[in-house]
């Protein structure tokens, strides 16, 4: 086109081009080298050098830990378990915390004693604990915390357990009796879940204005869409803790950007790396992967039991036989987790190897069952959330079911709509999703996780026998032969009725810089940095 012009003014001369290039380089250079470097600022050494002995050999004080998260803090969900509960244990404490064997350990409650009839529990509370604003922690704060979770507006998943507490008897500021309407065996799940908030500022807390707790860090700033900043609580009740001066949460929604953030040292900890990206992390020399095998969630295939032919138990069982769980574990979870036909992780008292492997990948048996139910080909809809991991799961299920003659049409749906369908029981024939609450006392799953609820669940499965065993498993003592029998009955019902077909237990996978030590998660994925330090 330019050839036809009568005159062609000269392009910028070589000299002017060089001048412009030089100027540009100078400007860029000013940004990149003349002033501070954003890269080296972010990688600034952690901890105060020389304060401790050998690097990494023992805890050392100081430094700021940056945690990469993929979703923002949602203060309105402060009292519900959500995808982002990491910050809870930094700001707040809980009454007790479980060890790896589900034995409760003291936190704000130092000891406890159940009444013989199981209708009350006496708690001794820690003295000398103060909230971040300096107010002392007392039994009134525990009474408020329980009553707060009884409020439906708080949307707390353990509301049923909180509601079982019907009376309070205060014996001074640091001793409290909780009276129960009926015995429950998951009270310590509630104590692990229930953060102790300041009653005077709770309304400010649920709008994100002021979060006042007794935890190791004070929230200094929440910048929506950007992150959270915490500073050390100098008056924390645990002596010499925490070691870190501060913690920063940085929101990095995109998986590749999150990975880059870890690889370039911009952040040192994340629990949000998708399974398929974990192989990349495994090859990075400065990063380490560790897995919390207690399992905070599980992938499942939900079945609407009121839709023909899924109202036939044989068809549901055929689907359960038709899915290759091991492949799902590898492809969707990157190999981190446990392929399982039951919801229970290995740490659960309800876990059995026989239950886990009750359904294995057996397309022949699946086809045989379908034939026995009078079907050679089925066409079914499957709803899934339109996010990468969830789509991968739905596609894996679709592939496996096609091999047994079940042709699945995927219905990608946004999270809010899927959530609405779940609660309002308007799911199509099949759906894939994840659930939690199998990582604590088994009774909690059937009482508090909606997909399993005996009274009302998305599968529209109802059975007087299931209701009876669930209620009994909740109110019977947690230990002993009777408890084991009841758990086994729940597991047997789930496997036999197959209204929720469990596929794999998802392990909480921690990716961290090798110089970071002492990080733990509680059973509800609250991040505990009491003993964390940066060294090495």
């Amino acid at each position: 086109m330019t050839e036809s012009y009568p005159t062609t003014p000269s392009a910028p001369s070589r000299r002017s081009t060089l001048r412009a290039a030089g100027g540009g380089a100078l400007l860029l250079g000013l940004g990149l080298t003349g002033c501070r470097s954003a890269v080296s600022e972010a990688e600034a050494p952690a901890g105060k050098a020389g304060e401790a002995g050998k690097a990494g050999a023992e805890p050392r004080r100081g430094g700021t830990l940056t945690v990469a998260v993929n979703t923002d803090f949602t203060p309105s969900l402060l009292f519900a378990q959500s995808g982002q509960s990491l910050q809870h244990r930094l700001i707040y404490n809980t009454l007790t915390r479980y060890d790896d064997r589900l034995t409760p350990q003291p936190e704000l409650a130092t000891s406890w004693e159940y009444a013989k009839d199981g209708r009350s529990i006496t708690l001794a509370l820690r003295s000398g604990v103060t909230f971040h604003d300096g107010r002392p922690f007392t039994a009134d704060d525990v009474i408020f915390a329980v009553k707060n979770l009884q409020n439906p507006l708080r949307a707390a998943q353990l509301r049923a357990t909180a509601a079982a507490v019907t009376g309070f008897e205060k014996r001074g500021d640091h001793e409290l009796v909780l009276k129960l309407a009926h015995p429950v065996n998951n009270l310590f799940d509630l104590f692990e879940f229930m953060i102790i908030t300041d009653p005077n500022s709770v309304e400010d807390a649920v709008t994100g204005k002021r979060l006042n707790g007794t935890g190791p860090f004070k929230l200094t700033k929440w910048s929506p869409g950007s992150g959270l900043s915490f500073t050390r609580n100098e008056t924390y009740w645990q002596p010499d803790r925490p070691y870190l001066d501060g913690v920063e949460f940085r929101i990095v929604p995109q998986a590749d950007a999150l990975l880059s953030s870890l690889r370039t040292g911009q952040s040192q900890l994340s629990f949000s790396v998708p399974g398929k990206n974990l192989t990349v992390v495994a090859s990075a020399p400065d990063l380490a992967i560790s897995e919390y095998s207690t399992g905070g969630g599980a992938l499942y295939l939900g079945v609407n039991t009121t839709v023909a032919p899924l109202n036939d138990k044989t068809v549901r069982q055929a689907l359960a036989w038709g899915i290759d769980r091991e492949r799902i574990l590898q492809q969707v979870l990157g190999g981190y987790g446990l392929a399982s036909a039951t919801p229970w992780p290995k740490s659960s008292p309800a876990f059995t190897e026989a239950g886990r492997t009750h359904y294995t990948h057996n397309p022949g048996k699946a086809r045989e069952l379908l034939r026995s139910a009078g079907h050679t080909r089925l066409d079914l809809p499957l709803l899934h959330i339109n996010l990468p991991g969830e789509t991968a799961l739905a596609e894996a299920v679709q592939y496996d079911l096609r091999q047994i003659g079940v042709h699945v049409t995927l219905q990608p749906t946004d999270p809010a709509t899927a959530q609405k369908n779940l609660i309002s029981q308007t799911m199509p024939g099949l759906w894939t999703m994840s659930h939690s609450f199998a990582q604590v006392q088994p009774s909690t799953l059937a009482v508090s996780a909606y997909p399993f609820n005996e009274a009302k669940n998305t599968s529209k499965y109802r059975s007087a026998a299931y209701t009876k065993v669930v209620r009994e498993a909740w109110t019977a003592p947690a230990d002993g032969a009777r408890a084991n029998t009841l758990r086994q009955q729940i597991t047997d019902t789930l496997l036999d009725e197959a209204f929720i077909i469990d596929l794999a237990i998802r392990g909480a996978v921690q990716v961290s810089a090798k110089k970071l030590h002492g990080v733990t998660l509680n059973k509800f994925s609250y991040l505990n940095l009491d003993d964390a330090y940066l060294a090495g």
Partner: protein
Amino acid sequence: MSGYLLRRLPSALLVLLLASFLVFAVLRLVPGDPAAVLAGPDASAATEAAIRAHLGLDDPLPAQYARWIGGLLTGDLGPSYAIGGQTADLIGDGIGATVELTLGALLFVVVLGAAFGIVGATSRNRWLRGAVRILTTGALAVPPFVTGVLLVLLFAVLLGVLPPGGRVPLLTAPDLGVQYLLLPALCLALPSAAVLGRYLEDSIGRALAEDYVRTATAAGIAPRRLLWRHALPNALPPVVTLLGMQTGHLLGGAVLVEAIFAWPGLGQLAEQALVRRDYPVVQDLLLLLVTVFVLVQLLTDLVHARLDPRIRWE
């Protein structure tokens, strides 16, 4: 000029009113609601119903619309349903980041677009013109999420000279802030710079083909003076209109780029709010976006009218 502005104002206000209806209605037509999101994945229908009543979502739609518009007119944007905090604070926190990113990208669009256009239209070097053409084709064809990943891989992971994401506000620490801004602004700017460059190339080409250029050339005016003093000013008015439209594209494209570079702007806020059906935040953000569009168009038309007097006289 003020008369021209006054003539344009009523239509701008009408657009805003219609947009408010549309935004409100469309959000209500989208399945899912904030109460279900707030209730959490394991909630019962009773919990969801209690939350819906608390948020006033049981009220008739006209009452909800009136409450929203009434709040806007009195400067009360109300609380966010799902994210937490006041909507005004949420938008206030994000707006600085988005303005920074958009202005940074706009600067790249103008500089790169002008360079692409002028070199493409005037260079006698075939190789240079070819290189610009390949560059603009690439910038148009490769989607920002790929460009973003490539930029991060090159400058952050391999070379390690720029941070892969995040933000330090320019006003807080300009030396650090500019380094955080470079990659997302460039990523956001590239497609628009390519469009602008091609349009400018064409526009300069047409201006250079005009008779007055031949006359000026015959009169012995230097080619460079011809380009800068005569051809370029005549080529500019439509390019300014295009730049106005591209500003809208930049605002829209910011959602994706903000996600790639963890840039805490309004795009990220909009995405979060939409996923959670946080009606007040989404409504206010969309209306704000429409208002900015309308203002940019008004401004563009004013500049266009300033550059081309014929527009004012119409």
